[in-house]
């Protein structure tokens, strides 16, 4: 029997002890003394969230294929255990070997959303690793950040030894080989980091310096010495078929958010919505071969025993063989009690037909993400969904028996007017009206339309990376306008309106486009008590506001300010293929409400063709 890091007494008094004991089906068991490299892979949130993340499952499987490497998992202890670990001085441990994280050679932390930044500091502190990279000695693991938020790593620059920019499948083995070689040769941590900076996609923040202008903008960002690349290239795996993918993912004992087989059908998105960071970061769109997907669907279901399989990608409807794939899944597994879930599908005749086969129409709801209420605004953001698409999709669905619709919008988009905002409520009402056009005897009671708005956060590497974000007051006033307008609609009783919290949004805006100086505010907020900021029950805005006061970080400078086109942005040293010129062009087009075609309808020369693959090389005829 493995010895657990926590005593029975502790495990029996905390919530969900199964979060901390490992030993799940398909978890990897290796002898820690018989490997050269130990890699702790961390998702800095609670187990149920972290275990639902596909990226870590891919890397876990890939790294463990190496005999010389043992990749183990680490998640954030929930606040009940956090308190006990501090009181009893128990160091944070990996789930597999139940041994301290600090023994590992690497601690890799995935950065999936800004609001987990304080959890990173918790993981470091509980692991007994100095929070600041500058304070770490030879005994500390090398702390690596990766994932979407690593595309603006600057607010976290003080806490990480290096960042991996881009998709993990390409450069990790080179990094591990280098580490092994240098460790055997007895080289120092510093020497390793300098050598690592030469691997494509690796950014070592301590090897770069930043100077600022008097107005607070960046004057210069440059390497400290020769031989360190001035630009860091994002990593992309161009062949997404012959690559790493876990055929036997770990099966948690407790119910996690994504309690199912996840089949990633493609990477990237052809659509080019101007607010969407993922749509730019993951260009070019690359499809996985359908035979590979069929094979993995079978093996993953067999090896996990999951009762559900979900297709995953941005805009799944754009996968060219979607119909064939879905038909295969239904025919092959539908009879064996396997549910098939299809998120991010465009609502049309095909998807309605599929959905009616795989779910109970009366219980399920349809989801539309028009993102903006007016056609004018949808043109501004390049969301190629027309009112006609929405109304006809909804009407077909209503005739098919559905009566629940969810609508997602954003408030605070650039150039938004009061009319655009009111149109959110009016669109919901038009959908309700179309429901009541169906003869009463064919209807399934009342319809239920849920309108949700989030507040727009400008993100790096999007055409809106320069724009001024709304203030908290503006956001809340806009939510009130929607709320009042909903109440003025004919079908107000069929419409329910929810809006997102403004405080979290503002912080997300700061962290998303912050520079190196923001790091000290993150540290201060953590010291003030901020932790699990992504959870409303544990979020306290005042920890952050006092941190800004104490560190002199000016929230408005980062959020409430439009950047000029020639300003050096903190993330400009990263190259994602998509060029700054293209993003600027798109920003200009958005101001004149011009729509840009999707990649298949016509290439707009975004720059991603530099990778020579995916949709860029598809036959345009």
């Amino acid at each position, binding site marked *: *029997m*493995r010895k657990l890091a926590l005593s*029975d*007494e502790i*495990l*029996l*008094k905390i919530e969900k*002890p*199964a979060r901390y*004991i490992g*030993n*799940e*089906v398909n978890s990897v068991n290796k002898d820690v003394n018989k490997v050269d490299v130990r890699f702790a892979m961390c998702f800095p949130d609670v187990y149920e969230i972290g275990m639902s993340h596909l990226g870590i499952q891919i890397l876990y499987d890939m790294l463990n294929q190496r005999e010389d490497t043992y990749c183990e998992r680490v998640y954030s202890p929930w606040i009940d255990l956090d308190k006990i670990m501090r009181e009893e001085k128990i160091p944070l441990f990996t789930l597999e070997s139940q041994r301290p994280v600090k023994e590992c050679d690497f601690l890799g932390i995935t950065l999936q959303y800004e609001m987990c930044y304080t959890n990173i500091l918790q993981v470091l502190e509980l692991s007994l690793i100095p929070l600041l990279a500058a304070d770490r000695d030879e005994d500390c693991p090398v702390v690596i950040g990766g994932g979407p938020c690593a595309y603006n790593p600057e607010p976290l620059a003080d806490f990480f030894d290096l960042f991996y920019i881009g998709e993990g499948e390409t450069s990790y083995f080179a990094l591990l080989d280098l580490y092994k070689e240098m460790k055997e040769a007895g080289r120092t941590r510093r020497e390793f980091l300098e050598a690592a900076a030469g691997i494509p996609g690796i950014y070592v923040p301590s090897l770069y310096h930043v100077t600022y202008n008097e107005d607070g903008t960046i004057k210069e960002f440059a390497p400290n010495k020769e031989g360190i690349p001035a630009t860091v290239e994002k990593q992309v795996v161009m062949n997404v078929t012959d690559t790493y993918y876990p055929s036997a993912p770990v*099966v948690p*004992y*407790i*119910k996690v958010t994504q309690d199912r087989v996840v089949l990633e059908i493609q990477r990237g998105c052809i659509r080019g919505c101007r607010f969407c960071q993922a749509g730019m970061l993951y260009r070019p769109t690359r499809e996985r071969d359908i035979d590979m997907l069929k094979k993995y669907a079978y093996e993953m*279901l*067999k*090896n*996990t*025993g*999951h*009762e559900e399989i979900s297709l995953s990608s941005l805009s799944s409807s754009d996968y060219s063989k979607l119909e064939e794939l879905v038909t295969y899944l239904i025919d092959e597994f539908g009879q064996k*009690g396997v*549910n098939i879930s299809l998120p991010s599908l465009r609502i049309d005749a095909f998807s309605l037909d599929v959905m009616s086969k795989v*779910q*109970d129409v009366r*219980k399920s709801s349809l989801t539309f993400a028009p993102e903006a209420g007016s056609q004018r605004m949808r043109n501004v953001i390049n969301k190629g969904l027309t009112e006609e698409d929405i109304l006809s999709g909804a009407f077909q669905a209503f005739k098919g028996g559905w009566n629940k619709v969810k609508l997602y919008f954003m408030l605070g988009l650039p150039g938004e007017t009061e009319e655009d905002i009111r149109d959110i409520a009016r669109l919901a009402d038009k959908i309700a009206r179309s429901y009541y056009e169906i003869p009463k005897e064919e209807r399934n009671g009342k319809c239920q339309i849920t309108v949700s708005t989030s507040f727009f956060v400008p993100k790096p590497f999007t055409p809106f990376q320069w724009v001024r974000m709304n203030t908290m007051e503006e956001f809340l006033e806009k939510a009130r306008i929607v709320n009042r307008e909903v109440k003025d609609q004919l079908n107000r009783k069929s419409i329910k309106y929810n809006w997102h919290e403004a405080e979290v949004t503002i912080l997300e805006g700061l962290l998303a486009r912050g520079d190196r100086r923001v790091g000290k505010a993150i540290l201060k907020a953590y010291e003030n008590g901020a932790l699990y900021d992504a959870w409303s029950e544990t979020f306290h805005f005042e920890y952050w506001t006092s941190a800004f006061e104490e560190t002199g970080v000016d929230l408005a400078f980062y959020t409430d300010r439009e950047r000029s086109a020639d300003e050096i942005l903190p993330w400009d040293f990263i190259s994602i293929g998509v060029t700054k010129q293209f993003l600027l062009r798109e920003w200009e087009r958005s101001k004149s409400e011009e729509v840009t075609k999707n990649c298949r309808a016509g290439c707009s020369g975004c720059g991603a063709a530099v990778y020579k693959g995916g949709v860029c090389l598809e036959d345009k005829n």
Partner: protein
Amino acid sequence: MKFIGHLDIMRYFQKAIRRADIDIVYSEGFSPHMIMSFAAPLGVGLTSNGEYMDIEVKGSLSSREAIARLNAVMADGIEILSWRQVPEGKAGKAMSLVAAADYTVTVPRGIFPENMEKDASEMLESFMGQKEITIIKKSKKSEKEADIKPMIYRFELLPEDKGREEGLQFKMQLATGSSANLKPELVMEAFAAFARFELPPFAIRVNRDEVYADTGAEGCRNLVSLEELGDEVG
């Protein structure tokens, strides 16, 4: 495994049965579920080597093959010991038949006060010699007294030499199931209270050893392990 709650153990077995490709029967409807039930849910913190579950299959593999297939997909710490066919209908529904269970309770050295460790055997004798063993049952609304003695079928201390290393070990057989159910922790608390001692939380270890059905006629107990209710499949 003792940290996994009953509902998660159910989910674990649903997935394990799929991995092993056992030809289980599903309920009808839009979200079909496996026909599966556990004889007696095991509380979090307890270990066991006597758990039973019923499943309905379309056709059975041989016992040996089914056990091998299931064990090939088990997590460390769960092992399938037996696969038996039970009669159809109520006689085959383990949950409705459960009447008693055996437990081994370990009290690690140093938990009980010295006198209690030394004189455990005599104390147990006088504890069981009481006419009634009353405990206070706390519910959300009220507290009421209950006599648990009729639900303790057996309670004894294992000979010292067996349990010396780990601490004191007790064996008990208690009423279990839907009509009467007594938890071993409660018995240990009552025993400690009898010796004017308060048991610290999570101090003892409990293992379930066996689960029984009562095949006796009215009022006359005849316990048979659930294992004995079924037959090997050849």
